[in-house]
């Protein structure tokens, strides 16, 4: 067989095998999801707004403008739900660090010191970051009455040049 023929064969094989592997993956992925009891819907609406809707139809999300206005008036406590390392690298000025993944360790030092009646705004980073949402739900369960989530808080806050505290400052 000539080199060009072998090369042609190689590319035909590559395409054929790639398609096979893809088709098998689609078939097994779909079949396993149908069979398993904890399968997920094949198509789902993914939006933070839905997740943050409360039972009475309100939303826990707070727009950046409102959060910034409360910040100006010093009328809200900002809780940073990210890790301590991320918090140390930079956070909303005056925010308190309450890492969701170690929330138990911060119970006495942070949560007990907060006023459950005060306006409390949780944030993390990324449109879909679940940390601030999970933290907000916990605080609500603990009896906090005015908890809001600033979705994608850290990124938005930086983008709008609002006051931050960073490692270098």
């Amino acid at each position, binding site marked *: 067989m000539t080199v060009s023929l072998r090369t042609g064969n190689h590319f035909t094989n590559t395409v054929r095998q790639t398609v096979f592997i893809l088709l*098998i993956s689609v078939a097994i992925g779909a079949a396993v999801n149908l069979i398993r009891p904890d399968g997920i819907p094949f198509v789902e609406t993914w939006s933070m707004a839905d997740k943050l809707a409360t039972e009475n139809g309100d939303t826990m999300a707070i727009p950046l403008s409102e959060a910034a206005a409360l910040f100006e008036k010093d009328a809200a406590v900002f809780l940073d739900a990210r890790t301590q390392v991320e918090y140390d690298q930079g956070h909303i000025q005056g925010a308190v660090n309450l890492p969701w993944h170690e929330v138990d360790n911060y119970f006495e030092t942070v949560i007990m010191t907060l006023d459950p009646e005060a306006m409390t705004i949780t944030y993390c980073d990324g449109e879909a970051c679940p940390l601030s949402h999970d933290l907000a739900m916990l605080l609500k369960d603990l009896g906090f009455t005015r908890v809001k989530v600033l979705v994608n808080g850290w990124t938005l806050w930086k983008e709008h040049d609002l006051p931050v505290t960073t490692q270098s400052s």
Partner: protein
Amino acid sequence: MPQKKLSHDVILTIGYHFTRLAMAGVFIYASIDKIIHPDLFAEAVYNYQVLPGYLVNLTALILPWLELILGFCLLINRWMAGASALATGLMTLFVGLTLFNLARGLDISCGCFSAAPGENPITLLTLVRDISFLILSLGLARLVFVKNTSRQLI
């Protein structure tokens, strides 16, 4: 010089099996946690914010199986042309996504080897690791090409 040719072939053979098994390990290991926790992995996929909402779950359901099956092909040394091409394609995609998110400064979890959100954030180290895997995959695809097109089998 037949002896020189022989040692060259031995090196190619060792390189071929090493990269094949290394990438098999990477893909199979990467798929397990995501297959076990499709809901968490879907969240990781969504966090990347590159796919329209309706494709998030489909991707989360199929991508781990694709990784497992192509990893298995690499492991048993079958369908190597397709598997090595797919491995290269996937690693290119992952490097691209990592670069994209590092550039955006988005703080999300990698979802690379563990589906759990909040763990393993994307860092420069993630990028270096993914680029290394991409180089291995490219090398493997090249060796498969040599193996399939040259007269001598390596």
